[in-house]
């Protein structure tokens, strides 16, 4: 990982930024074109080709029903990305305004909201999501929303602490002296100053959401079969790991590429947009 001493400023983009952008680009293209790229439908059975090892016909082999693992992994990318993006949009969309308002208004309302978020963060994260998913029928969207809600608290805390810093800045005093409204201050002064940090936070949340969604569907409380979700495929392939390891290994490799790509992009963006934050790794 970069140390931040050598790669300051606006020079050549760093290797991690290029690599991350390339991987994320390929990933997005895959998500968009999954149905075109996949050689077979994700739920098509090939009864005579059950447990086929990887070959030219089935690039990543077939599973216990003879379904093409490669096609399932490709189409699974749509599920993972949907989950990650919906969770990220929910936690950023609610967390950032909460943090902005609490940090700028202060007083009793701030105190109340922050204590409520403290309480939310005092619970072990996975328990809250499991509780939500057990009570209501599980599904992709439900899982994404549960994870998104869970992540509101840390995002709001970050946005609040950034706001508190900016409240003391010179341009805030100037805007106040000009008699600007609060919304102008928040939207036109604070957000433009905060967005590099928020963008990096969003990339982190995206990664955490994808990983947590995988854990939940692995435990059978998230996306339900026969969907080709990566966590679900790993969970299903677990029973055949002795003789057909490709069933479980392929979706994990796809997940690793996704996570590494998004993390590299986030790291690269941080170094480029906010050189003073780098090297804290």
């Amino acid at each position, binding site marked *: *990982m970069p*140390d931040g001493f050598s790669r300051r400023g606006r020079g050549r983009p760093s290797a991690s930024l290029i690599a991350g952008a390339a991987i994320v680009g390929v990933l997005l293209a895959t998500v968009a074109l999954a149905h075109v790229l996949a050689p077979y439908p994700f739920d098509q059975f090939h009864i005579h080709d059950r447990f086929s090892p990887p070959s030219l016909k089935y690039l990543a082999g077939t599973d216990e029903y003879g379904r093409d693992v490669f096609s399932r992994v490709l189409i699974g990318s749509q599920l993972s990305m949907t989950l990650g993006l919906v969770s990220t949009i929910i936690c950023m969309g609610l967390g950032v305004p909460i943090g902005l308002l609490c940090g700028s208004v202060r007083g009793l309302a701030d105190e109340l909201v922050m204590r409520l978020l*403290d*309480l939310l963060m*005092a*619970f*072990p*994260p*996975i*328990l809250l999501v*499991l*509780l939500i998913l*057990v*009570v209501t029928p599980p599904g992709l969207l439900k899982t994404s929303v549960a994870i998104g809600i869970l992540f509101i608290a840390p995002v709001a805390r970050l946005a609040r602490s950034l706001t508190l810093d900016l409240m003391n800045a010179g341009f805030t005093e100037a805007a106040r002296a000009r008699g600007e409204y609060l919304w102008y201050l928040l939207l036109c002064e604070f957000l433009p100053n905060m967005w590099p940090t928020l963008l990096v936070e969003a990339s982190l949340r995206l990664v955490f959401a994808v*990983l947590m969604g*995988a*854990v939940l569907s*692995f*435990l*059978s*409380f998230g996306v339900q079969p026969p969907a080709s979700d990566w*966590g679900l495929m*790993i969970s299903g392939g*677990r029973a055949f*790991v*002795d003789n057909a*390891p490709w069933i*479980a*290994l392929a979706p*994990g490799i796809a*997940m*690793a590429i996704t*996570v*590494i790509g998004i*993390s590299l992009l986030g790291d690269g963006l941080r170094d480029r947009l906010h050189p003073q934050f780098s*090297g*804290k*790794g």
Partner: protein
Amino acid sequence: MTRAYLARRLLGIAVTLAAMSCLVFLATHALPANTAALILGPYATPATQAAMEHRLGLDQPLLSQYLSWAGGLLRGDLGQSAVMQRPVKPILAAALENSAVLAAAAMVLVTVAGITLGTVGAVWRGRWPDHAVAIFAYSGLAVPEFYWGLILILVFCSRLHLLPSSGAGSAAQGLVSVAAHLVLPVLTLAFSFLAHVSRIVRSSMLDVLVRPFIMAARGRGLPEYRVILRHALPNALIPAVTVLAQDFGNMIGGVVAVETIFAYPGIGRLLVYALERLDLPVMQACILVITAIFCAANLAADLITAALDPRIRLGAAHA
């Protein structure tokens, strides 16, 4: 100051547990199935259903049900498992013991490996050992714990036939069996936390290594290994201890997944078992116990940090 702080934190934990008990209670009552129907099975008549509900007190108003359940909890009575027809307490105690062994072993491994790798990364900063350590540590973060667990099973159980892939050894089978069953779950759990600890040790080592007292030690002609191990490392460990204490709380999520993949009979697996079969008393007890452990670990993390570094004022974070 410290005593008041401690009292406030303990009060906070009590509030958290009370809130969690309400949440769990309401959540389980929002479920379509109830305990009586679970005990009786699908062929119950409405009359037996009503009789069983009366015996379990399910026909009482919600508030009095909650109060009698919470009162039982306070007296240490965790109720009766609906599926296993046994008191929850001994089941939970056995599971907790297994999980404690797993988590403690993983903590020791993370501590030793994380400090070693972090120091290596800092000393050889920017050269190949640093990059190798970073790649190794970050690969623990790229996929969920259970995936590495699966790969370890594939390599050590399916291919090499070296270690058992599931369950826990019992004392009757001897210590070797217990240890053999622990190796893979502990490795898996520890691996997912290695990145965090080793990165923190590395960056705080880098901070320490440029301080004047390190230059002074080198100036006195001390050998480099002595400068690093005796002078730099102890000063670099304070943030690491904080991170380790925090990770102990975060390990709970990992414990659930790791125990599931290795079929290790700990509290995480008990929780998943209870959730799948809607064994409400077991589920409620597991969730409350796990929440209590999580809160206690976080409090311990803050206290340890304050004890190590007197400059950190307790309660300042809450201002």
